[in-house]
């Protein structure tokens, strides 16, 4: 099932990726080829097969809910491209 350019644009928007027109064209072709290969999965009868989300034979453990040392605010902000007043600085989300 071929992926259309419109679908590529929709997915790119969901994934927060700006693509060039050349990239849109290339990904439409390549994703179509990969999904075409994956189509063979649909012929497998899995009606009685449970999905595998993890291979671990035990449930996720829970740790005690107690306060422990963690990164300092300065450490957490050290890699930020922009920080101010102990916060990550970003452009406006909404117009003022």
């Amino acid at each position: 099932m071929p992926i259309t350019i419109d679908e590529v644009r929709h997915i790119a928007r969901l994934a927060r990726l700006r693509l060039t027109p050349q990239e849109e064209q290339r990904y439409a072709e390549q994703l179509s080829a990969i999904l075409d290969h994956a189509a063979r999965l649909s012929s497998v009868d899995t009606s009685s097969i449970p999905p595998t989300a993890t291979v671990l034979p035990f449930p996720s453990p829970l740790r005690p809910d107690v306060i422990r040392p963690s990164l300092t605010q300065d450490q957490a902000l050290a890699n930020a491209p922009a920080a101010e007043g102990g916060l990550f600085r970003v452009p406006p989300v909404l117009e003022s």
Partner: protein
Amino acid sequence: MSDLTELSLLQAADALRAGEASSAELTRACLDRLAAADGRIHAFLALTPERALRQAAEADRRLAAARRDGDTLPGICGIPIAVKDVLCLEGVPTTAGSRILEGFVPPYSATSVARLEADGVVVLGKTNTDEFAMGSSTENSGYGVTHNPWDSDRVPGGSSGGSAAAVAARMAYAALGTDTGGSVRQPAAFCGVTGLKTSYGRVSRYGLIAFGSSLDTVGALARSAADLVGLYASMAGPDGRDATSAPEPVPQVILDGSVRGLRVGVPDEYFIEGMQPAVEQAVRRAVDVFAGLGAQVRPIHLPHTDLALPVYYLIAPAEASANLARYDGVRFGPRRGGDDLLTQYLSTRGELFGPEVKRRIMLGTYALSAGYYDAYYGQAQKVRTLIRQDFDAAFAEVDLIACPVTPTTAFGIGQHGDDPLSMYLEDVFTLPANLAGIPGIAFPVGFDGEGLPIGMQLNAPRLAEGLLLRAVDAYQRVTDWHTRRPAEA
């Protein structure tokens, strides 16, 4: 000793314990070798020579004290190694091979690296990788390709290609890698070294930059199985900082040189049309060596093997698309411009992720999107169960599975061009172990007509890494493929 880099890890450890060489000397020898060879190979993205020499000096103090007091230190104390650049090292730039993490300096170390450093290992630097470990050649690195030390026109494999090349070219005694779909085993095979992929959960993923969280594992590469034992023993075991860390204790690995009585299954499905004949011949000869050592070899079936590729290339991109949502130019890495937050997200991610990473994010987002989830991601998770059941059934009858690592030896740089599917097919023999969460090991079993190394793979049940190391060590006691080194490097 003329050239310390010619020693194996275990020989170097013996020299340290006997006081015949110092960790500082081993470290300088590796750094000299690096300076001479890495301009051509480009195995490393960052070197940490001053930090390494400080660690070496500390290791030498510990070794001297142990000699004086008759104490025992971990065998890896003072050994210089390389670390794949997807594992965080506190205070050392870590990029995952991506421009989107350029300049990132982690405030903590990965548990795997921290445990090795606590045992006295010296870290020489960070090795090249396909961006976010997505690839089979290191061609997807944002910082240039690594060249195979056996033939510089060929890839070293990937994604742990820098680590494999560093070990093959004698720049480090061992290196850490990670394996989500074959990224330790395939480069080990292409570079003629021994690479261990651990069971899912056996080595903590804390501090490993996430790609596919249900598949990611930490492993190591060295010149032999015996050289890997100390690294594995140091890294493996429960870690409270990784909720998927296996709680089981790690048994001591015993190398007794014996495979007598072990049942070794050879799956028909791994000998496919289009395989390079030299690879099949070398693998079958190696199976005969195991039989000659007393192993009981028998054919087995893993009937869903051909479905591993489509299952993997839906599940891994789906998990990657979620994991890589965090790279948005807000908390780390560079930022690309925008007057509002959405524009900043679109530009930062669109400009700084490479083509393969964007392709996988797109594929994963599609597979998880409304209307397609059940048909793609949901169905892939169910077929993943069938692949696991194949292995469960096989391991009811055999102790080990023997098979090729790759259909061919190292391919040429640029050979797969812009054809992602043909590149994905390179992983066809390594993906199943990740989907099942079982361990695997790749080791050299010969060379093709062009002098390129051929690897073979053993798989074992979950948490049976010790059995893999013991079996490969037994093979390496009676063969010498693992001692060959590239001529130029």
